[in-house]
């Protein structure tokens, strides 16, 4: 078998691919933001005095973290219409990403809150700081700094996970690539190219996260 690599179809479709790459970034950003919201609310519920609420959050986190995203997105894709909610696949994908990322965010944020010792809060109050100052300076900033590495690497992973959203035909890079592939039969060329595009996206994200970290969290700990 003599196969000649031919990337010309890829170049021809490059505008479509670039648009789709933007869509992937958008999908990831939407998923991340909602995941953060779920994470914060989840941690609040996880530390509440209402026992069933705590148990529900724990169950949610464990179920999401121990089942594949593919099964989750299928389940949501079929469950929403049965509840009478009709959404386009891309919005469904965002919901699935938010739920998946949210479960991981709950675990990560909880770890950050746990890392702040009660004594520090008491010390802050004893020194005459306002409650708001104590929260901002003693709880929030160190907690953010503690969770930043795991939270951002989770975000990069969530961005890579968006490729699975092709399974419900959401609009993103992989699904556009699959359409081009089925039109042209240049499977390897198309997938190789978008793999590189994903690599660029995740490297850009890592670079940006590192920059933010250097700007806001580079102060000595002790």
């Amino acid at each position, binding site marked *: 078998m003599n196969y000649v690599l031919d990337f010309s179809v890829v170049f021809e479709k490059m505008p479509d691919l670039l648009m789709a790459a933007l869509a992937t970034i958008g999908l990831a950003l939407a998923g991340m933001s909602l995941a953060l919201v779920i994470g914060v609310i989840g941690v609040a519920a996880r530390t509440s005095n209402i026992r069933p609420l705590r148990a529900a959050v724990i169950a949610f986190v464990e179920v999401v973290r*121990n089942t*594949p995203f593919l*099964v989750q997105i*299928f389940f949501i894709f*079929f469950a929403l219409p049965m509840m009478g909610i009709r959404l386009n696949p891309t919005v469904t994908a965002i919901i699935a990403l938010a739920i998946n990322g949210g479960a991981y965010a709950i675990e990560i944020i909880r770890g950050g809150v746990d890392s702040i010792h009660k004594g520090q809060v008491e010390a802050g109050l004893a020194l005459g700081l306002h409650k708001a100052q104590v929260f901002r300076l003693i709880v929030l900033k160190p907690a953010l700094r503690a969770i930043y590495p795991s939270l951002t690497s989770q975000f990069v992973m969530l961005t890579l996970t968006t490729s699975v959203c092709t*399974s419900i035909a959401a609009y993103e890079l992989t699904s556009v690539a699959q359409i081009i592939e089925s039109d042209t039969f240049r499977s390897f060329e198309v997938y190789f190219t978008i793999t590189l595009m994903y690599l660029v996206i995740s490297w850009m994200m890592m670079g940006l996260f590192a920059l933010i970290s250097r700007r806001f969290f580079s102060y000595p700990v002790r």
Partner: protein
Amino acid sequence: MGVIGQNEMLFLLQGLKWTLLLSAIGFIGGGIIGLVIALARTSAHSALRKTAAGYISIFQGTPLLMQLFVVYYGIGLLGFSIEAWVAVAIAFTLHASAFLGEIWRGGIQAIPKGQTEAANALGLHYVSRMKDVVLPQALKISLPATVGFLVQLIKGTSLAAIVGFIELARAGQIVSNQTYRPLLIFGIVGAIYFIICWPLSLYGGRLENRMAKAAR
């Protein structure tokens, strides 16, 4: 709506067999290559270190689904005619090797340098120094993360479904299309994954807690 009978359940269980087999191949194969990657990543030669770092960052920076696609179609281009499951197994092996390599690199670097120096001073050569001194401790430190990755890998094998390989998730899709009961079927499929992954996650978490306590 169709009924979920014995045949459907048996079909799902056959899919489960492939899920477990793929996970096992990926984990064992990835473990062997991953060890080489981890050693290269911590070696004294900078070319080796950089190559291993590049390998790891490519696999960590691209979606597992793309790795499956590229290996799956790439092997076909090279002119080998192999069965689909072999191609998928190779992809998972490579994927696992990069992640395990990175996890174990962390373990190796967590071992105090003094131990390597002491082993050197005692006249141990590289193989014995690694095999008898550094690796046993490094792998022990890395055990929680290794178990965590195994869970990721088991869940990740579901992506073979998108390539068309019939493992548990794909079997679920097929049964769901036949019976028109997607929620029930994907509920069952999810529950099966959960039954496999949850005990592993709990075990990994327990190991981590125990080590955190021991470190204090």
